[in-house]
């Protein structure tokens, strides 16, 4: 990335300065830095990326619907960020380990999440949504930026063992203001940890625009920590895939951490509790709608004759089927019994908590003796 010292209030300019492979109209642009990383990607793989993004958008829409219908306490939509999430996550090897934020629905999808995994936490059934060891994804993190340090610590372990793995952490533009994210970059650089930082700059941290977080392109900070970075068009799935392959190769080959800023846009609210009409103007939203990541890849595939109406219909049907499974898993969840509230606080017996559990069990039992 070339240094840029001007403020970045103009989001259109922001995007134009990013690395890309697919233009917004779907045409392929030469990119000297990234092309080599996706030279092997053929039409079938492109169709698979398209399918992933369509399925993810459908999962996301279902999450919003389930929340609106009172089935989830909250949902954090990722509409608009499909390319950034799918493109980067599809570059990972199975043994790599991901430390995500709460918005990474597409990342856990790409890591093999099961239908209930998307909603278990938001429904309030469990503190974490899935088995971290099975997906090799840490629990979704709600504290902003805390997970970046966890990724660095994990990467320290990888380096210690000389294992061919990489730790990856996802966070948003708002997180870059947090001390933890900056500390993570310092620790990562100091120990040359095999970790990849993926910042999805979606332009809004609830109601705070990215200009409140940064007066300088976010990817431009990483070199100051001694970490090479790339700034990519986050709505270009091919550019995201290529950039992530670059970053992973860099980290895996012992060269230390790498940093990607995927410049994208959160089309929906921060969460279902948020009302973006209070702080965001329609023109900005519409300008980003014209850069829809799914439409872009679809246009590209249509132009090359690699996507037919039949394909699109099949993909949409597959997405609907996934959403249906997700809904069924959500509605079929059985809440654990009352004493489960005490389960798993400690790994070993804790007399204080055991006493409370016993007291509560006796209290509950008193209702049974009444009946």
């Amino acid at each position, binding site marked *: 990335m070339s240094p840029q010292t001007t403020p970045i209030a103009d989001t259109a300019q922001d995007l134009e300065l990013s690395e890309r492979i697919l233009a917004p109209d779907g045409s392929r642009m030469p990119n000297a830095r990234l092309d080599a990383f996706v030279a092997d990607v053929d039409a079938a793989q492109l169709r698979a990326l398209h399918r992933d993004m369509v399925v993810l958008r459908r999962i996301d829409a279902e999450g919003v619907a389930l929340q609106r219908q009172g089935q989830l306490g909250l949902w954090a939509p990722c509409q608009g960020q499909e390319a950034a999430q799918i493109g980067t996550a599809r570059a990972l090897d199975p043994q790599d380990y991901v*430390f995500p934020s709460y918005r990474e629905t597409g990342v856990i999808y790409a890591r093999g999440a099961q239908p209930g995994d998307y909603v278990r936490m938001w429904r309030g059934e469990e*503190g974490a949504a899935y088995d971290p060891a099975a997906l090799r994804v840490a629990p979704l993190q709600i504290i902003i930026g805390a997970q*970046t*340090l966890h990724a660095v610590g994990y990467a320290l372990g990888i380096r210690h063992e000389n294992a061919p793995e990489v730790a990856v952490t996802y966070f948003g533009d708002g997180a870059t203001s947090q001390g933890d994210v900056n500390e993570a970059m310092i620790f990562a650089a*100091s120990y040359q940890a095999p970790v990849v930082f993926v910042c999805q700059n979606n332009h809004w941290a609830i109601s705070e625009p990215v200009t409140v977080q940064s007066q300088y392109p976010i990817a431009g900070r990483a070199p100051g920590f001694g970490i090479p970075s790339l700034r990519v068009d986050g709505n270009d799935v091919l550019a995201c895939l290529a950039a992530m392959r670059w970053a992973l190769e860099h980290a895996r080959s012992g060269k230390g951490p790498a940093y990607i800023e995927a410049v994208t846009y959160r089309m929906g609210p921060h969460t279902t509790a948020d009302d973006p009409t209070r702080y965001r103007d329609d023109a900005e939203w519409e300008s980003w709608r014209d850069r829809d990541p799914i439409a872009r890849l679809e246009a590209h595939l249509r132009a090359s004759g690699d996507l037919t109406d039949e394909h699109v219909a099949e993909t949409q049907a597959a997405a609907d089927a996934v959403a249906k499974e997700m809904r069924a898993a959500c509605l079929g969840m059985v809440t654990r019994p009352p004493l489960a509230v005490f389960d798993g*606080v400690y790994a070993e017996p804790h007399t*204080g908590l055991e*006493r409370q559990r016993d007291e509560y069990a006796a209290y509950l039992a008193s209702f049974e003796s009444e009946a």
Partner: protein
Amino acid sequence: MTQLTLGKALGAGLRQAMRDDEKVVLLGEDIGKLGGVFRITDGLLDEFGAARVIDTPLAESGIVGTAVGLAFRGYRPVVEIQFDGFVYPAFDQIVSQVAKLHYRTQGRVKMPVTIRIPWAGGIGAAEHHSESPEAYFAHTAGLRVIAVSNPEDAYRSLRQAIASDDPVVFFEPKRLYHHKGEVDLDAPLADAPPMGLARVVRPGTDATVLTYGAMVGTALQAAEAAEDEGIALEVVDLRSLSPVDYDSVAASVRKTGRVVVAHEASREAGLAAEVIASVTERCFEYLESAPLRVTGHDVPYPPAKLEKYHLPDLDRILDAVDRVLDRPHSLTGADA
């Protein structure tokens, strides 16, 4: 048995834990070549190398957050926070991450992180170097909190904390780092009493003084002075602040019927309040008088020249003992 200072006993405990389990790694500021500002980690870099004795950047949240990631990878990180007052920048990582990950994941992710904190006052230190933050951590579900008071305990409890699959906040009274005591370096860990147990340090029949850390010594001095007046104080070292060993505490209270709780930390919402509430719930019918607290004042830790007015001393403990015994006491000069 070997004569060791509390500081050396802690160092020996770390060394043994690292020899026992290669997954034990240390992280902290200045813990490598310098051996830590209190020299607790002295010599460990030479024996175990920089990959296991990790000098870190000066960022407490970073140190603890990195330890969380190492635990995800199957390590047993032992973190040194340089001084008690420096733990606050790491507070979020400790209470929101270290404490909760096991619960959030229904036990799928273990957090065997030990957080060592040189702790509390009495050494004439600069601001932020004499804090007693134990109540914050004892209040947090998912953490265990240990406070040691002698070399033998330090050596054993530290190894137990590191071996535990739960996270442990481990308080080391820096006032006692140079105090010597007998340590059995070869005693098998499996034979040691669990680290959660309280211990009667001095048996007595007239009143129970419950305390921990460096205040154990102060309480013992008070007990000796009381003996001159014919009063037999029982001194109990809580040793574990989460969980508190209420079985042992209650056994003592049932014997004496009178309770004083002493700690350096300030009073409001402190450990003494919790201990007295629990004692009252469990032993109300055995109590001969209202339990009393002897604590630091509810002020920021004072400047070094004033700390002697803040820290409970044996006279303040004895004054409280007089009051729980319904004896004439110094505050009013009259019967209670």
